[in-house]
């Protein structure tokens, strides 16, 4: 092995390591971008205040409110109906004012889910270290950044020092070879669900995953974000994709794209890639051509199958692993499912198109293809929650809002919404939902709620049919879109 051959992750790590504690670490890493939201930051600011500390680099810190803001048009103002949410939102406003942090507040045209607005505003950059008190920070890895979620104690540490302690993870290669069988029916969401299903919810533990291969190169930036977003669901510390011309083009001319951007691109083009002789500590290889549209049947994202399959038998799923079998049995009990039931025969109550995984413009365009000229099925209620106000405006300019509303969908303001049920958008106990979000954990979308994870086009098709269908067989019209 060549002496200096490194993976992309190692290069970013090395260029941000301020110091290492002993030979084996942990290391203190410099943080280039810190994103803050209302739920995991109040105690961090309180800690600063209690110790008379300032924010070390307010200019590298941005904030938005996304987790508990109402998404119902007309309700996005203070005071909010929910008093505890109201307090969190006001606290973030006060903290940003006091500590000099730029805030994209509830009324801002740039408000949105933190992982949607970072790239959209040009705050996310290749080669950067990016942290946020949110596990889906891994999303930004799509730009070749090292981006990971931290807890509130670490948020306080980053606010105070612009650094974070971290034990160096190992490099993991996830090679996705070949091309998808139906490029607009099998999506990035299906790829990542399939990956998690194959490698398990802790398959990436202790590692930073680099997604490689033709299927990844072919993907748009928004699709790469979907993949990197769910890296955490495979237990990985972060996920990333080496930047290419698509990456650089995406960030050109955005509101906060640096002035010397082209100079930076010249450097990134030469440096931000894994050397051909670099070695990964672990590798997985996936054949993209084998991936069908995926639907989760259980209570973690690894409990997923092809839409053409049936709810598995726990014993078969366990395959001799008692703990795995037990988990599947408990999951089916919670989900109210019987083994052997075809995935396409499970009736749905709700459809949620939203979240930092799948609420960008392309996601809404793809979902609209299954909806145009159709009506949602009787007994189903469905909503679209755009990932940011900018996504919402763009979608409206394209007339997507009309397509969804004509079909019977609710068209909302942006926020995290029913992905995690912190605002009023929740499932009722027993309700079954097709969701484009990232987690199907018990109670995630509301106590007793049952979540089936799927892609935007799959969720949209499920809304018009009342159950999942194989979108490869569905007649979809692009119309004016």
């Amino acid at each position, binding site marked *: 092995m060549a002496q200096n051959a490194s993976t992309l992750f190692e290069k970013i790590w090395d260029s941000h390591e301020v110091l290492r504690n002993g030979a084996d670490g942990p290391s203190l890493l410099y943080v280039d971008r810190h994103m803050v939201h209302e739920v995991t930051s109040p105690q961090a600011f309180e800690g600063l205040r209690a110790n008379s500390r300032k924010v070390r680099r307010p200019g590298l810190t941005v904030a938005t409110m996304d987790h508990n803001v109402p998404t119902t048009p007309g309700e996005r103002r203070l005071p909010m109906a929910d008093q505890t949410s109201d307090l969190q939102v006001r606290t973030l406003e006060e903290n940003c004012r006091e500590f000099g942090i730029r805030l994209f507040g509830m009324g801002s045209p740039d408000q949105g889910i933190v992982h949607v607005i970072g790239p959209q505003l040009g705050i996310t950059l290749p080669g950067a270290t990016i942290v946020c008190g949110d596990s889906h920070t891994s999303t930004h890895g799509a730009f070749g950044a090292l981006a990971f979620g931290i807890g509130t104690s670490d948020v306080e540490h980053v606010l105070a020092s612009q650094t974070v302690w971290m034990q160096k993870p190992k490099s993991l290669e996830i090679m996705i070879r070949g091309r998808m069988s139906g490029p607009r029916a099998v999506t990035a969401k299906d790829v990542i669900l399939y990956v998690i299903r194959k490698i398990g919810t802790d398959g990436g533990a202790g590692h930073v995953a680099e997604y490689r291969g033709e299927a990844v190169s072919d993907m748009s930036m928004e699709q790469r974000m979907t993949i990197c977003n769910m890296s955490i669901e495979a237990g990985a510390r972060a996920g990333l994709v080496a930047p290419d011309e698509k990456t650089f083009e995406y960030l050109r001319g955005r509101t906060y794209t640096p002035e010397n951007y082209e100079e930076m691109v010249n450097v990134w083009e030469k440096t931000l890639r894994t050397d051909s002789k670099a070695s990964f500590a672990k590798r997985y290889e996936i054949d993209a051509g084998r991936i069908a549209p995926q639907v989760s049947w259980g209570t973690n994202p690894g409990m997923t199958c092809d839409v053409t399959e049936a709810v598995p038998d726990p014993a078969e799923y366990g395959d001799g692993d008692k703990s795995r079998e037990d988990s599947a049995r408990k999951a089916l009990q919670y989900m109210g499912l019987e083994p052997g039931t075809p995935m396409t025969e499970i009736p749905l109550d709700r459809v949620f198109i939203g979240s930092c995984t799948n609420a960008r413009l392309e996601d809404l365009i793809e979902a609209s293809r299954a909806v145009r000229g159709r009506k949602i099925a009787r007994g189903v209620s469905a909503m679209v929650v755009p990932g940011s106000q900018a996504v919402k405006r763009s979608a409206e300019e394209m007339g997507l809002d009309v397509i969804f509303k004509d079909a019977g969908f609710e068209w909302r303001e942006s926020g995290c919404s029913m992905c995690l049920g*912190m605002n009023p958008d929740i499932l009722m106990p027993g309700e079954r939902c097709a969701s484009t979000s990232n987690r199907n954990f018990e109670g995630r979308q509301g106590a007793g709620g049952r979540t089936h994870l799927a892609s935007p086009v799959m969720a949209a098709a499920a809304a018009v049919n009342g159950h999942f269908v194989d979108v490869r067989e569905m007649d979809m019209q692009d119309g004016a879109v």
Partner: protein
Amino acid sequence: MGGERNRNVSDNNAVTGGVIKYARDNIDTDVIIPGQYLKIHDYAELATHAMEGLDGDFHSKAKNASFIVAGRNFGCGSSREHAPIALAHSGIKAVAALSFARIFYRNAVDGAFLLPIEIGEDAYEGTGEGDVVTIDVKAGQMRNETTGRRYEIKPFSEIIGKIIEAGGLFRYGMQQKQQKQQQQQQGS
């Protein structure tokens, strides 16, 4: 509140207490503390909702218990620090699991909320609901007082041990700074 969320595990002494056992893998932060409660700033109130997504009786059980014993990948999911805080404020001193999701582990340590103890299959299988166990980090041991069996626990890495001993990341950092200053003064 911010500075004193919980510092009740800042010593390396052995702790004895009852066990609440969840014989399952992938206990995620959404069941440890469901999202709707992340708005609660009062930790005692937050604690009343701990594990609500999995076990409605947890809060009352925790009055007579100090430990949770669970399977693989404990604390997977969200980065919410409310998860270890809610458990700690319910009286949980340590979670003994086959493995931990990274952010939960880190949050538990950085805030010194509770001890994340990695155990082997033997200890996991050999410990049941209601057993009384002693966790002795210094001795690297978990003793099941009910059955009389002893198990090895995975030792903390040096720095994690130090952060826990100091009572969290900030206290550790301040200690380091003070030590450095003292060394400089002695040197000059």
